[in-house]
Structures are given as C-alpha cells and as structure tokens.
C-alpha cells in the first residue's frame, strides 16, 4: 500500500504544488478525494506488486476503474504527476466471452487495459476497465497522442467505440472489411477469402471455401492438469 497511502499522496501533492503551480480543477480534486478515500465510485480494486528482481522503486500496480471514470483517472495521472512522468505504453483489450462462459457475465464482456510507464520512478501502472458490449468508452486521445492508433486498432479488432475520437477508422484490416477479428466469436479462418478468378480475370473476395474442414485439436487433458510450480504475475 504505497501509492494509496493518504499521507504519501498528500505529501506528493504538496511537493508538486510547491515546485510548480498546479491549478486544481473540479475533476482533479474529486479524483484525489476518491483515490484517498478509496471510494468505490472510481477505483474498484487495487493490486500492488513489487518486482523483486528489479531495482528499488520499481512498482507494478494495477487498478480496476469504473468505465465512466477512465478519462478523469488518466487526466489525473498526467496532470498532477502523482504517478510521476506518465507515458502511455499500450492500450489493449480482452474479450471475455469464452473465459466467462459459465458466468454469462456480459456486463464484463470486454476488459480494456491501459498500460502506463512512469519513467522517473521506473514503475508501471495498469488500469483495467470492464464494460459490456456497445458501451461507449471515452477516448483519451486529447491526453495522449499515441492513443490515437491504439484506439483505432481496438475499434477495428474489437468493435469498441470511443467517444471523442476524431478519426475512428479501421486501421489494420482491409478497406471495406466487415467484422471484428479479435472477438472470440469471430472464427480463426474468417468468412471471406481473397482469390483470383481465372475466368473473370480479377481478384476479389469470395466466401471462404476450405478444402478440408477446420479442425481444432483440443489436447488439454480433461482430468488432470500439469502442476505449475509457482505463479507470479
């Protein structure tokens, strides 16, 4: 419990505000209060880890945040430097469709993970957001320019919309592609294939025609699992 210690945070804020004038607006103050009081409105759960193999001060922390508050959380991180110099490393998404098939918890269909790197303190922060399909999550492109393509990629591969993104186009798939390939309900082989038509003399999309039925070899043993010695995240 390093980052969320109340005195620690207050000290940092004090230090920061002595060195450089920070103008607190409503949201920042709200967020600080939430963070300190561990209000469940913003931060749902916190998981702190120290990487023992690494030099001192290396802290890996992951928090789960309410999807509505993601923008303010990131704004808070960047503007008040609680987390040092913040650098957006990646935004990635996980489709929980198959994983939670017994739970049928479609409120948490997608998990969005924002990975931040603090260069000054050499620590990393993961922010997780869980939300259902069709939820409009707020874009952070106004805070991090690098979020632009990352969000486009997630839009392309998962079909998640980002509110406030100015240029939400497909990025990795072909022009006019339909569907979201990394969703778990999208088949590995896809629906269409590109091929050359010998008679019509053109290259075009056709429905996929597999020479042999697609096979999945489930090699997992149904009754026993190999024991894993230890698990550290």
């Amino acid at each position, binding site marked *: 419990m390093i980052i969320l210690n109340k005195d620690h945070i207050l000290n940092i804020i004090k230090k920061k505000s002595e060195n450089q004038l920070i103008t607190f607006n409503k949201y920042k103050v709200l967020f600080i209060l939430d963070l300190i009081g561990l209000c469940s409105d913003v931060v749902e759960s916190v998981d702190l880890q120290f990487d023992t193999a690494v030099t001192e001060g290396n802290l890996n922390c992951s928090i789960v945040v309410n999807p509505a508050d993601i923008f303010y959380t990131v704004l808070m991180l960047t503007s008040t430097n609680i987390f040092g110099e913040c650098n957006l*490393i990646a935004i990635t*998404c996980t489709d929980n469709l198959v994983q939670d098939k017994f739970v049928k918890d479609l409120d948490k269909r997608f998990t969005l993970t924002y990975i931040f790197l603090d260069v000054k303190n050499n620590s990393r922060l993961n922010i997780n957001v869980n939300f259902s399909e069709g939820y409009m999550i707020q874009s952070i492109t106004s805070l991090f320019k690098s979020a632009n393509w990352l969000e486009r990629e997630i839009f392309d591969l998962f079909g998640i919309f980002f509110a406030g993104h100015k240029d939400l186009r497909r990025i*990795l798939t072909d022009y006019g592609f339909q569907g979201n390939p990394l969703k778990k309900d999208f088949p590995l082989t896809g629906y269409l294939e590109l091929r050359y038509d010998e008679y019509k003399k053109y290259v075009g999309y056709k429905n996929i025609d597999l020479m042999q039925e697609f096979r999945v070899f489930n090699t997992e043993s149904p009754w026993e*699992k190999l024991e894993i*010695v230890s698990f550290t995240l």
Partner: protein
Amino acid sequence: MLKFKEVKNFLLNFGPQHPAAHGVLRLILETDGEVIKKADSHIGLLHRGTEKLLENKIYTQGLPYFDRLDYVSMMAQELTFSMSIEKVLGITIPKRALHLRVVFLELTRILNHLLALTTHALDVGAMTPFLWAFEEREKLMEFYERVSGARLHANFIRPGGLAWDCNSSLLYDIFNWLNNFETHIFELENVLIHNRIFKQRLVNIGVMSAFKAFNWGYTGVMLRSTGIKWDLRKTGFLNDLYKDFLVKIPIGLRGDCYDRFLMRIQEMYESCFIIRNALELLPEGNVMSTNSKIIVPPRRNMRMDMEALIHHFKLCSEGYDIFKGQSYFALEAPKGEFGVFLATSNSNKPYRCYIRAPGFFHLQSLDEMSYSHMLADLVTIIGTQDIVFGEVDR
C-alpha cells in the same frame, strides 16, 4: 477589385510499393507545392492476424510467430515472449543461457542497426554503405544459421533457456568477427557522418522534443535522441539479463535524424563491447532450466527414463498451463520497447496476447514529424524511424 482564387492542396499517393517506404506503407500526402501538410498513413497491408493465431496455439507453438513479426530483429522478440512466459511461471534460467541470450540479443541489435542505417543511407542517396553492411549482415546470419539452423527465423530462444548449447568454435568465430567488425563500423561511419550531402539531408530534419516523444509513446533510440536516458536494458523488468555488463547508453541532443543516425552507430560499438564482455565471462553449465513440468527433457534421457518420455509426450501435445491472470513484459528490442501482454486463463493457450510493437508508435507520429517538411525529407523520416512492417501490422 482583387479576386482571390482558392487553391487546393495537392493529394499524393505514396506507396505501397515504393522502395523508400520500407515495405508496404501507403501514405496519402496532402502537399502544398512540395511541402507536406498532412501525411495520413494507411497500414495493415501486411496484417497476418498474429495475435489471433497465437490464441489458437499452445505457448511453445506460438514462439515462431515472434520471429516473423520484426523480421530483421528476430531473436529480440523470441526473447521477449520467452521471458514473459518465464516471468509468469517463475522459472529461473541458468547463468550460461542468460549470457548467451545477451550475446545473441546484441548480435541481433547489430543486425538490425546495420539494415536500419544503411537502408536509410540508401534512401538518402548513399549506395555503398548498404553493400558493405549487407556483407556483414550475411556473416551475422551465418552465425544465426550455425546456432539454430535458420538464417532468419531462428526459434532458438525458448521459454526456460535456449534450444541447445552453442559449440565453442562458433563462440570463437563470433569473437574473431567482432575484431574485424569494429573497423567496418568505423569505415561506415567515416564515409557517412562527415559527408556534406548526407548531413544536409539529415541535420535538423524530423526534430522531436522530449515532451512530444513521451506523448507519442516513443521508446528506444527515438526517445533517447531527445535527451531522455531511458533504456530497458538498464531499467527494465528483469535486470538479471544485463546485470553483469556495463551498458553505456548514447543520448541525443537535438532529436533530429542525424542524432539518431549517430546514436545507432554508437550503439553498435556498445553492442560489440557487450558481446565481447559476455563471451569473456561466459560460464559453463546448462543452457536449459531443469523444471521438467515446463521444459522438454533432453532426448538422451527419453531413451532411458520413462518419466522423461511421459513428460516429453505431455509437453509436446498438451503443453503447460498458465493460471488465470494478466501480465506485461517488455524488453529493449533494437527498435524500442517490444512488449508482450499476456492474458491467461488456466489453459495451455494464451487467452489474449497483445504485442506492443515500437514501430507502430513511431510511425503514428509521422504526420507530426513530417509536417511542413519537403517531400524528399519524408523519405529521411521514414528511414530514421526504422520501420518494419512485420511488427507494425502484426
């Protein structure tokens, strides 16, 4: 009475089969005369769905896909994936394997920088260094071939260590090659860095400030050229890889293309130093961890030992399971921070594997970097970003 005529900017399509586009980059350029006002890059022409394929393969089978991402720095990516699995499983690696990993990671860095620098020079107009460097690259790929059997896609670094040990004659040859190679870098440096035409094309082109570099998610040489001393070899997750070695990190001053060029050359010298160091300190011993629940036993044991045979069968068909959770691991690949985000779900396949490619982030800033530069400078900027489409499109 004055009448103003509305002048529209000129739209120009660049690529995807342009030799200076370093692969399959398509750019829609909006130009005002010869000055670029907007560069909209269309990527994805080499998208092979690696992340989707990885979800359908067991961990061991997924490894060769990593060679094929950035196909000029193969082992750096194998190493990242292997180490991310090792980190999750908590396996410790024998010392000899760690040292050999450093040797091959640094060889890969040289392999990458030789291509990056000289194709950059080629785009700008210098043909000769390209030919020289490819001779050296050929020798490096020979080392790859001797150690793994493949010139490019090595599949040599496995979770738990290395596929097999290197013989001493190979290590001896690498050591000898280093001595000659430093003179070759010197030649390359000599022919380019004081060249007036070359400097005119590179100095003060594509300048980035540190603030912008952070905002665009830069890592590696691109970030260091702006004056930030950040190298995952020294500050990364698992420092035990580079713990024994002195890594000097060159930093840029102006953040322009010329700085990055000089830094890459300097990094090659440093890599030579590290390789020599690693070879001198190379300990004896195993190159594979002995945890038989994760690592396939040696073949000679399988003939004698029933347990080993069972393990071999189970590991080659079923693989090993990783508990539910998520982890992120990154290494300093030649191009920047190459990371692997693994979401696992109690099964033998990754539930989701996100690949953080440094080139993706660098290419993204092309619009801002090339703003109000001339069209010819765009080629310089693409060259300095060291883009490889295998990793950008994944």
